């Protein structure tokens, strides 16, 4: 055994394995505390749920050289201004509906999920809705009956009917509007937003 050089010994590498693992994990814990604070609802990166009362735009930021969400003036969803608790309840209904209908196994959210249907990160800002004024009604109609209001762009892929109620659909739209306000470090890149009248 004395022929084994020190750097090839089992004992040395056992210690290295333990210390490297523990060290990496400790760093991850510290970063996790910092990150969770930075992305709590109401932070600079992830706005409060009541952001659905305001206009959300996605604009180029010259200093960071990427696009970022810009929160504008009042633009209440479905014309109703909600307080923080009501807004959270509506977005929560939307998020639970998104999970209960298994949206993520066709779509991506923040780029994560399946690739059979478009990403939903900026669905609220997509030019597919035509105009700011038509958007809410079109989204509501589409979610409640995606078969009749199919948007296949020539692929033949239709969203199935998922028995989404009107209240659930409103929740999903609130969730999508709120999600579009999250600062995602410029993802999706080069996104061409729906034309919106600037309200500040």
């Amino acid at each position, binding site marked *: 055994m004395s022929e084994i050089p020190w750097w*090839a010994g*089992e004992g040395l*590498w*056992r210690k*290295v*394995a333990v210390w*490297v*693992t523990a060290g*990496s*994990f400790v760093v*991850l814990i510290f970063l996790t505390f910092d*990150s969770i604070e930075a*992305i*709590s*609802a109401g932070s600079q*990166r*992830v706005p409060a749920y009541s952001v659905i009362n305001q206009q959300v735009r996605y604009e180029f930021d010259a200093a960071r050289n990427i696009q970022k969400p810009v929160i504008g003036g009042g633009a209440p969803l479905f014309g109703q201004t909600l307080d923080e608790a009501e807004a959270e309840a509506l*977005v929560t*209904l939307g*998020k639970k*509906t*998104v*999970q*209960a*209908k*298994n949206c*993520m*196994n*066709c779509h*991506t*959210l*923040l780029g*994560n*999920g*399946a*690739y*059979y249907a478009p*990403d939903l990160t900026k669905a609220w800002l*997509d030019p*597919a809705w035509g105009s700011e004024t038509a958007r809410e009604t079109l989204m509501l109609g589409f979610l409640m009956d995606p*078969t009749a209001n199919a948007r296949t*762009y*020539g*692929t*033949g*892929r*239709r969203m*199935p*009917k*998922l*028995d989404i109620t009107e209240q659930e659909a409103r*929740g999903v739209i609130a969730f999508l509007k709120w999600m579009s306000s*999250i*600062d*995602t*470090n410029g*993802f*999706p*890149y080069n996104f*061409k937003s729906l034309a919106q009248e600037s309200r500040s």
Partner: protein
Amino acid sequence: MSIGENNLQGLNGGQRLAVKYFVVALALFGAQLLFGLLAGLQYLKPDLLYGVLDFSVNRMVHINAMVVWMLYGFIGSVYWLLEDESGTNVVGLKLGNLAFWVLTAAVGVVVLVYLFVQIGPGTDTTLWLINEGREYIEAPRWADIGIVACVLIFFFNVAATFMKGRWSGIAGVLVLDLVALAGLYLAGMFYTTNVSVDQYWWWWVIHLWVEATWEVLVGCIMAWGLIQTLGAKRRIVQTWLYIEVALMFGSGILGLGHHYFWIGTPEYWLTIGGFFSALEPVPLVAMVVHAVYDAGSHGFRSSNHPALAWLIAHAFGNFFGAGVWGFMHTLPQINLYTHGTQWSASHGHLAFFGAYATINIAVFYIAVQGARGGVWMSAHLPGNGWKWKWALALLNVGVVGMTVALLIAGYEQSFVERAIEGSTWAGYFAGQNHPWFLQAMHWRMIFGWVTLLGFALLVWDLFTIGAGETREARDVHPGEAATA
């Protein structure tokens, strides 16, 4: 002991339990391929089963069957090696058997609910009883709790058996890894409305399982497998195992950051995630060197040729699928365009197959050899072993073919949808309608069928190899105890 006949009584208790896990794993492997084929076909024929088994359902069953069959393969592998490695009988074997039946019944119920109930209203009840709607960990909450209970029983059995018997380097790494594996699952067991926080913890489960704890678990199985099939020296494989753990956790734990580029998390993750995930291929290179060097230094004189071939396939598959394919799109400057495209699907196919399916199949062959009374499975098998060789070739060609087809689709999508069109829905569909994309989907389908053919041959081979064989397995440990 009779040679060449199925003789489960000749196995130890842990091994008999392992066989049960392997049988279910194989069935779920079949289900994974079947539902993958359906989902793949829906890209080409979107009306196929529309409103009956939609893409979302097929895709969910496809990825869930994969995760579960791999876990079954891992649990089975550990039970298979447990008594040999610890030198004593499995502690809590009855409890282990009970956990197997409970877990299998739960998996059955979850799959039936996925297929026949599919979705529910946007309430907590749906998330508890039907579907949690979070990719890879869709299992409803009741099943999460059952999974944790069964994994804890498994962990207890493994730790208690080593404590009663003897510890080894492999045993120590294995037990600590199982603590992490079970603990991390808890990070995915709560609801939050904040999608950024949701995905933060969701990646703790997915990434720290697949790119850290699973990798170390298969490192343990690989170490044991090389001792088993080649008679490699324990001191050498254990030293390698420690080096791999250091490199794997050293790169993989903070490599988690490559999932935190675009979900709302701070910009420092671009640097941390990019740097550490760029290092993630390093341990996988080490594993290739290790496996090939050991095989070569023993002149490829193995006790089990199919198992050794699959172990080598694992080393290369892990390096290319997880390492190279991951590295190719892990830096944020590239990931900005490739994130959420077929690029990820390409990487996913080669990585899961290369890193995990392969090593499970290797252990299946070791188990089959044991279950037939320790039969000869080296060179000069009947028919020159054509079935295992063709199964190996077809499965690898099939998965590599799908990977390359999806890679082409991913490049096209990154270019057309993202770089040119600006990531709108119109841009997405412009990418999906492009002839390059459509051709890639056809090629993916063709190689999907090749994979299925390979699977069919594999099952046939596993049920027949060694049957009627009269020669005993080659002894690769001349003059020493098998686990000394």
